[in-house]
């Protein structure tokens, strides 16, 4: 048995033991697994390697941290409530348009922060009560916002699993926007209609209005949306004319957050920023831990061993392994699954379009947020819609999840043909 294989099993074993048995956070479990790899390979504690590893994701950490600050500022300013009001007022008589738009609203925080929990807990908490008023049973409303969480997490501009997978093969997070839109938007439209269309009823504005927060929109009007618009415009300009507007995402988010402080409800920006970073720390810690894990795997030769092993797997078995192991490993963390399994699978699929393949793998990895016992997205969604047993929400997500896996694998198989279309 190759020594690298023993090392890999030891690292993954320690990681799983820490995460499941000792119930350590994923970040610390990654750190423990990395230390195990260093000690068993004879590299001692190798602190410099651990620190070096964290630098692989230091810019991603800045993007996520500032995105969370921006999202918190937008939420505190009242813009999310106002956005809900505008969409419902305008489209309440057109369910086929209203449902995908509500899905987009629920996805928005995830798209900005790359975190499904952020989506479910912020916009999801605003959208879910409205869905239930419109006639959706609580299970369907929960499934709707849980799905919005993971699709938002994968949709551009920020997709942490794709960043992790790309980082593992030194591929920058560039050129992912269109593949990620192609992967997520058709699913967002389809699932919003599947979850909602058969239940939704037409409700009069008089019936709806008392249950919505109309005050903020009445008081501040459209200017509430200025931060979101400015951030969107700066992102587009940053892509189209980078020589003039290549500010970088952290600065764009800080500009948006600063604007949110003055256009809507007043709030304490310092405490809001502190709370935002507090919410972001588990994800930021995972990124630091993933960096360490990959660094140690590279140092000890485990990464090369996994790649060579993955390359020798027959294609049919490879797709089956992708479909089964990545979502299952996601029970620990979808980011962990991206790091430990996403990177080797991407390397095993070097003959495919790498951007499209990494994007599709990230979509499969996101399903980890539905995987018990952690099932973050489903648990938070169940709490928001007032369901005690999250398995009732989870049941509604099983078939959509299988469809997501099949959809992603089709994108991987035909990655070159799809990428040739744009």
């Amino acid at each position: 048995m190759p020594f690298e294989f023993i090392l890999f099993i030891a690292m993954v074993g320690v990681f799983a033991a820490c995460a499941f048995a000792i119930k350590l956070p994923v970040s610390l479990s990654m750190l423990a697994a990395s230390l195990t790899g260093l000690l068993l390979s004879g590299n001692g504690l190798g602190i410099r390697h651990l620190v070096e590893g964290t630098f692989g994701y230091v810019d991603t950490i800045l993007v996520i941290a500032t995105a969370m600050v921006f999202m918190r500022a937008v939420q505190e300013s009242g813009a999310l409530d106002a956005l809900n009001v505008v969409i419902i007022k305008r489209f309440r008589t057109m369910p086929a348009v209203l449902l995908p738009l509500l899905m987009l609203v629920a996805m928005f925080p995830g798209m900005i922060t790359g975190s499904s929990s952020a989506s479910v807990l912020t916009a999801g908490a605003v959208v879910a009560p409205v869905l239930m008023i419109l006639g959706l049973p609580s299970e369907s409303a929960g499934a709707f916002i849980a799905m919005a969480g993971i699709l938002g997490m994968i949709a551009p501009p920020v997709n942490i699993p794709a960043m992790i997978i790309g980082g593992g093969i030194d591929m920058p997070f560039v050129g992912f926007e269109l593949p990620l839109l192609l992967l997520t938007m058709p699913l967002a439209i389809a699932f919003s209609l599947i979850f909602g269309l058969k239940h939704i009823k037409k409700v009069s504005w008089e019936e709806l209005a008392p249950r919505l927060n109309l005050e903020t929109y009445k008081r501040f009007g459209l200017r509430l949306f200025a931060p979101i618009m400015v951030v969107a415009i700066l992102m587009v300009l940053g892509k189209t004319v980078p020589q003039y507007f290549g500010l970088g995402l952290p600065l764009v988010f800080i500009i948006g957050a600063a604007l949110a402080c003055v256009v809507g409800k007043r709030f304490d920006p310092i405490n809001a920023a502190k709370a935002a970073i507090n919410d972001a720390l588990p994800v930021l810690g995972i990124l630091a831990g993933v960096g360490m894990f990959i660094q140690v795997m590279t140092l000890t030769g485990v990464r090369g061993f996994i790649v060579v092993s993955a390359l020798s797997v027959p294609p049919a078995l490879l797709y089956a392994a992708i479909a089964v192991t990545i979502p299952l490993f996601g029970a620990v963390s979808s980011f962990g699954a991206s790091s430990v399994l996403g990177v080797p699978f991407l390397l095993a699929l070097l003959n495919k379009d790498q951007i499209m393949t990494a994007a599709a793998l990230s979509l499969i990895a996101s399903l980890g947020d539905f995987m018990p016992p952690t099932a973050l997205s489903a648990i938070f969604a169940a709490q928001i819609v007032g369901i005690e047993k999250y398995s009732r929400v989870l049941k509604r997500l099983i078939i959509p999840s299988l469809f997501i896996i099949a959809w992603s694998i089709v994108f991987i198989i035909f990655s070159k043909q799809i990428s040739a279309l744009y």
Partner: protein
Amino acid sequence: MKIAYLTIAAAVLALTAWNLWTEKDWRKQATAAMVAIPLLLRVLLIK
């Protein structure tokens, strides 16, 4: 741009350190420290 980048990094570092200081759970403190170390080295231009 470099100044803006370092200012943002310093701000995130300060907020992380503040959270570390006020946090009671050692696991969350350790996670905050894992995030703070690379940011500190970056802000000090060591790495």
